[in-house]
């Protein structure tokens, strides 16, 4: 569907995107993750043609961005980081304008615009001036314009940024509704959202692609430890190190808080049961014990701090 092949972007003496390559299969939602300044928006701007790559190619369904730019641009809808809205227009007129500017079939305009408004739940504000919309509605309007014409690929650059929790849920529900029906490239800082919505994830840092795969693949490949969180009473604080050493010399103990410890061991060693059993046997006054589930946040921190 989307193929990004060794895309590089250089400015004078700085390389901001360095030979980034990835593919998104049809019907998949791909999360594009990285810290601020990693090169996410630059890469997305290159994919949309807003910026010219220094080298490398991008294609959608075989249409090359450089050799067939107009056909290429017809095949995607794009919501940039700041929704491209004209404050002096009303919602419906704006969508009609974008529809016409995309050179889509005029006879289907009403149906397509109505569908986009229904999908993003903005039909009830269609006669309102854009400058009078809340941030959440503006974001949804930005998404609606990206959906016009039902493009093969939808590119969303940080669609939930700056929204309140209720608005984030609304936008997230829209993204979930896209699953299977559309191919989506989505960039976000909110890893829980990426984990919930995306089929696969691409990590980028300092302009380099550092990892790619499904959530499960990324966790298994990059997190090589099992971690156990232990909370004990004040009287038992000094016992934890001793108990851990008794179970195995490979257990590493890290104090997180006054009464809270993190015990970690290599992924191949499942020492949780032994550790719990020994803590109980040695009469350590446990208030909490659980195995910490590895998450995308852990993968992210592991990868960007390497």
């Amino acid at each position, binding site marked *: 569907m989307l193929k990004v092949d060794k895309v590089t972007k250089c400015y004078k003496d700085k390389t901001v995107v360095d030979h980034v390559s990835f593919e998104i299969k049809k019907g998949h939602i791909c999360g594009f993750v990285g810290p601020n300044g990693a090169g996410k928006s630059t890469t997305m701007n290159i994919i949309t043609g*807003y910026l010219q790559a220094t080298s490398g190619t991008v294609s959608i369904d075989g249409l090359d961005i450089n050799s067939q730019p107009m056909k290429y641009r*017809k095949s995607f809808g*794009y919501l*940039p980081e700041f929704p*491209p809205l*004209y404050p002096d227009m009303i919602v419906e007129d704006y969508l009609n304008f974008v529809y016409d500017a*995309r050179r889509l079939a005029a006879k289907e305009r009403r149906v397509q615009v109505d569908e986009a408004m229904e999908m993003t739940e903005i039909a009830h504000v269609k006669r309102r001036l854009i400058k009078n919309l809340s941030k959440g509605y503006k974001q949804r309007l930005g998404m609606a314009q990206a959906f016009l014409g039902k493009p093969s690929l939808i590119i969303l650059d940080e669609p939930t940024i700056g929204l309140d929790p209720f608005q984030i849920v609304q936008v997230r529900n829209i993204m979930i509704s896209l699953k299977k029906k559309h191919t989506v490239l989505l960039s976000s800082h909110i890893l829980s959202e990426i984990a919930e919505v995306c089929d696969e994830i691409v990590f980028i840092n300092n302009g380099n692609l550092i990892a790619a795969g499904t959530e499960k693949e990324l966790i298994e490949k990059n997190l090589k430890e099992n971690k156990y969180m232990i909370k004990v009473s004040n009287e038992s604080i000094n016992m934890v190190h001793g108990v851990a050493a008794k179970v195995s010399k490979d257990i590493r103990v890290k104090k997180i808080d006054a009464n809270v410890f993190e015990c970690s061991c290599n992924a191949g060693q499942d020492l949780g049961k032994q550790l719990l059993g020994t803590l109980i046997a040695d009469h350590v006054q446990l208030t909490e014990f659980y195995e910490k589930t590895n998450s995308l946040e852990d993968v992210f921190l592991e990868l960007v701090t390497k």
Partner: protein
Amino acid sequence: MKAIFKRELSSYFHSLSGYIYLGVFFLLSAYYFVISNLMVGSNSVAEYFQNMVTTLMFLIPILTMKSFAEEKKQKTDQLLFTLPMRTSSITIAKLLASYMVFAMGIMSTLVFIIIISFLGNVDMYTTIGCYIGIFVAGTTFITLGVFISSLTENQTTAAIVTYAVLFALYLVTYVADYINNDFLTGIIDAIAIFSRYTNFTNAIFDPSAIIYYFTLTFAFYEFTLLSLTKDKVD
């Protein structure tokens, strides 16, 4: 292109800029009509149109300042330049919208020509020549203004720089009189866009002046494209 043209034209009248431009233009035209014709009892249009073209120096920046600068500031350029539409089409659509508003202002002056015709005979050839002259000069100024707007994301900067460039080109006409160097005089003659307009007001139909203005308009259009397509896929 039609969608961009319609949106651009309507934006002049959703915001105040179109009304301000047309209102001020008409008021100034009326003022020049009063002092050039009514107060002195003259039926000559030459001085009236000569004053009008210097008015454009102040008013064209109002028309063109937001053309691309506002798109950059509002980030709507990320929509425009990712549409399945060439940058040339987008630029032409914006230019045509500006030309249209400019033409509306010029056409409103017909009322004064009609009034002059009641005062005495109006030299139709001079009048037609003046209208042709002001249209071609106006399109050149507008294209220059749109080019300058494409260089910045601040409307005010675009307006001030456009005015400054037009004012400098206006002053250059007078500087030529004090220079004896042929080479420098040649350069000044090439950029003295206001002096070429004078022929139209003197009832001299000068095709070379029209070619000159169209050449400059095309040059500014190309500069605009260069500015906009730098580092973009087009």
